[in-house]
Structures are given as C-alpha cells and as structure tokens.
C-alpha cells in the first residue's frame, strides 16, 4: 500500500479547500466530535426540514484524513433524507471495514455509490488512521441521535 494511495489528490483538495465551512445560526441538530488521543476537533451543524437535511456546516481542525472526510461527508449528505443519510453512513462504514457488508453492497467496490468519499478507501490499510476518517461520521451519528431514521 503506497502513500500515494492514501494521500489521493481529491483528499488533499478537500483538506486544503474544505467545503461547507462555518456554523448555522439556528441549527436543528448539532454535535461536537473529538478524538482525545490526537486532539482532532469537529463541530457539526445541521438544518433539518421534515426528514431532509437541508444544510450542513462544519468547523474544526485536524489531520488531512479527518478534515477531508468531514468535507466530503458534508457535501454528500446535504439535501439527502435521513434514510438516505443512514444508508450512506452504512456504506461508508462498510467500505472502511468498520461495519459488516450486506448483499446489497458490491464487495469488490463497496464505495461505488459514495462519490469522492471512495477516495478514503485507502485509509483502511492504515489502521491507526481509520478513527480519523470516522470522526465526522461518529459526530454525525451523535447529532442525529434519537431521530427516527426513516
């Protein structure tokens, strides 16, 4: 596994030019995520209308993997229904081998439906960094906790 597979161009682009930065004035859901081992921090604001995520804003500091994952996640979930967000989260975790796959997901390319996020697949070869990639997703789950998924 070469480092060039880890530090893909799209990851560095999201790290250097993070999308959807900022905060919402009146978020419908919010969570702060932290990795206490490394100090990475993330603050996530969501606007939710009915069962749809209508806006996503992020602030935080951290490594290229956590920040790129956050930026890509924000782009991926904006405009999606909560059920679609849950499905996306599952797909991401299957790709990262955090969750078991299921028949609906192609084993050879579990990130096929994930767009830019598929670039993070290389991270699973670097076990200590999987937590970095998962930080925004764990923060998202925290923000949505208690909401019916569909």
């Amino acid at each position, binding site marked *: 596994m070469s480092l060039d597979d880890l530090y893909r161009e799209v990851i560095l682009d999201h790290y250097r030019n993070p999308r959807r930065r900022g905060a919402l004035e009146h978020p419908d859901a919010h969570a702060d995520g932290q990795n206490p081992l*490394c*100090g*990475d921090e993330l603050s996530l604001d969501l606007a939710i209308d009915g069962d749809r995520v209508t806006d996503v804003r992020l602030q935080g500091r951290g490594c*290229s*993997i956590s*920040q790129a994952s956050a930026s890509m996640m924000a782009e991926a979930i904006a405009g999606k229904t909560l059920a679609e967000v849950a499905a996306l989260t599952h797909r991401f975790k299957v790709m990262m081998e955090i969750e078991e796959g299921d028949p609906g997901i192609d084993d050879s390319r579990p990130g096929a439906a994930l767009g830019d996020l598929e670039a993070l697949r290389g991270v699973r070869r*670097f076990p200590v*960094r999987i937590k970095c990639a998962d930080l925004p997703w764990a923060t998202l789950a925290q923000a949505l906790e208690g909401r019916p998924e569909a």
Partner: protein
Amino acid sequence: MSDLSRLRADFPILSREMNGRPLVYLDSAATTQKPVQVLDAMDAYYRRHNANVHRGAYALATEATDLYEGARIRVASFINAASPREVVFTRGTTSAINTVAYGWGLYHLRPGDRILLTTLEHHANIVPWQLICRHTGAELAYLPLTGDFRVDLSGLAGLLDERVKVVGISGMSNVLGTMPPVAEVAAAARAVGAITLVDAAQMVPHLPTDVQALGADFVAFGAHKMLGPTGIGALWGRLDLLEAMEPAEGGGEMIRDVGLFESTWAEAPHRFEAGTPPIAEAVGFGAAVDYLSAIGMDEVRRHEADLTGYALDRLAAVPGLTVYGPDEVAERGGAVSFTLADIHPHDLATILDSQGIAIRAGHHCAKPLHRILGVPATARASFYVYNTRDEVDALIPALAEARRLFGVA
C-alpha cells in the same frame, strides 16, 4: 557514547524492521526501549525468586524482599537520596504525583489556598491538582512562558505569595525540551512556606539528578522512560514530609495495625505502597538504573545534547519547518517538537512510519501548552542513549517525501 553499536546490540527491538525499513525509534519521550539486562533481570526474578514480599516466613520470600528493597536502594542512590526510605515505589510518574495530591494536598489545602503550576506542564501535573481543588476549594495559578519557550520568572515574586502552598513544576518539558529553573523556583517556594513537587518524568532519565541539591520537596518519575518496565515509578520525598503525609490508598502492606474501626499506618515508604507491589517491575527498574549508571548520566546527557544539536541544525534546513522549543542545546532536552508547513502532524507520522521511523504526533498530553503555541498538534522526535546521528539523518528524506506528497512548494 564510546561504542554505540555495542550498546545498541543490548536492545533487541532496535534490530527490527518496520514497513520494510530498519526501525528508527525516535519516540523515547513516550517510552524507551529495554536492554536485555532489564529483560533478563525480570525474567530471572520470575524463574528463580518469585514470592510475595514483606510477609513470607521462608527463604524464597526473603530473596524476593531483598530484590525488591535492593531495587529501592539502587533507585535512591541513582538520584542521591539521603535514604532509601525517601523512595516510594508507585505505578509511575502520574501515580507519584497523585500520591502527593491526595496524601498531602487533600489534608493541607483550604479554600483560597493556591497551587502554582507552569503552563508547559503535562496533564499529569495539572489534572490531579484540578481534582484536589474541587475537594478543597484551593485555586490554580500558572507561571506563563516567554516567547522563547522558557518559563517566565519575571512575575514569580507577584505570583508566589503566602497563599501558595504547593508549586508543581516540570523538570524538563516533554514537548519543548525546556528545562525550567527548578532549584531557583523551589528556593523561592520554600521562602513563602510552599512545598515544591517536580514532575521529573523527563528529567531523571536524561540529566544527572541530585535530589538533595535540587532543594525540592517531592520528585516524581517513572521507570519506563529510563530503560525500565512500565507499571512502576518512584516518588522521592523529604522524609519528614513523607512521615507526616497520609496514605492515598489503603490496603494490605501499608499498615501497622488494623482494627474493625480504625487503623494505624506503617512508616514511609511502605505506608504509600498498599497491596502487593509490582515486584518484577521493581527488579527491572533497579537493573535499568544500573545500566544507566554504568554508562554514566553525564555521558547520557552529553550524547543526547550532541544528537539534539545535530537534529536542530538539520531540521533548520528543511523549508517550512518550525521547531517549538529553545534554540540553545544547553538549555533543553532531547524532545524536538515541530510542524511542517500545513501538513498535519498525524499525516507526518504516517508518512515517517512508512519509512520505518517512529515519532509521536498529537498534543503529547499537554493541551494547554498547545493552545498557547497556537497549534492543535505537533510532531515530536525524541532521543535516548541508543539513538544515532544516522537516525536523525533518516528524518530528512522522509520529511522531503511528506512535502512531495502534500505538494508543499
């Protein structure tokens, strides 16, 4: 070091490969590697001498007790303690600091009293005192840093008034390498009736240490940062203070008499060693100080100062690299923390790891210090007796690779 390759042969792990490259271990500020002399001493203890200490009325138990107490004598002599009774074995530096916080602080501090720390402290010398403040109503105050990473003593006279009862200060920063003027601060603390505790987790392993000359009241350090095993450390304390101090933990081994409703305590140091202690670890600790004494702590310091100076020179030539810590080798230890352009330290650690180089990335258990430095994390290379200039050299192409991967011009 007169014969570094022979010394390195004592450390089996240093001949390992990581990710297809020879291991370059530059994380000794986190934990050091262990020589065969330490491993063999611990192995021999379990194979030939294992029994519980201070209680068996048979010859094997006497052997185990002699080995355990023998280790205490070695550690005491290593730091020039006036008596082995001044050396309490603890689980490590953190537990040594907590022993003072809960054995002295809890009983002596009152609302309005102050505990004076510095802003470069490790969490281990901050959080126990925050907990004690909650119990006692005492307050924390901090000596700040200067712009050149030294502890700023210009305001010491103003901060160190009669409200201050405890001064907690690092003997060597695990992030910056800074060596605060501990003796000067301890003398000033004594003048206002405060006790001084030195977090010596990085000091005792790297500098010749004479606790009597230092003038502090307590000195805390751990074995695993000085070639010994994890799970054991030491609290040195002035005997009169230890004798007047309450135990932070109760249990077997630390008592004189136990009744159903009241008990009395054993004398120091056993008063502070409740339960069966880490005996094999004490034996390993003793073997580690023997190993360091055979090299000589002046030589340990000379070797590390050489490597640190060399590393600072080589890193200064890397474009975009910032070192956090004093420039002068004479004023710092061998922990060299840095950042490289906008590359996050975790990414640096991953890239260096792919070249077989082990460094630490993160806040190094010093979050308040990193907030002051204005960075969420730093990368840290740190050195010990077994490191070589070649290993410092290995950093340079690895950092160039990081620049290439991140497209840093």
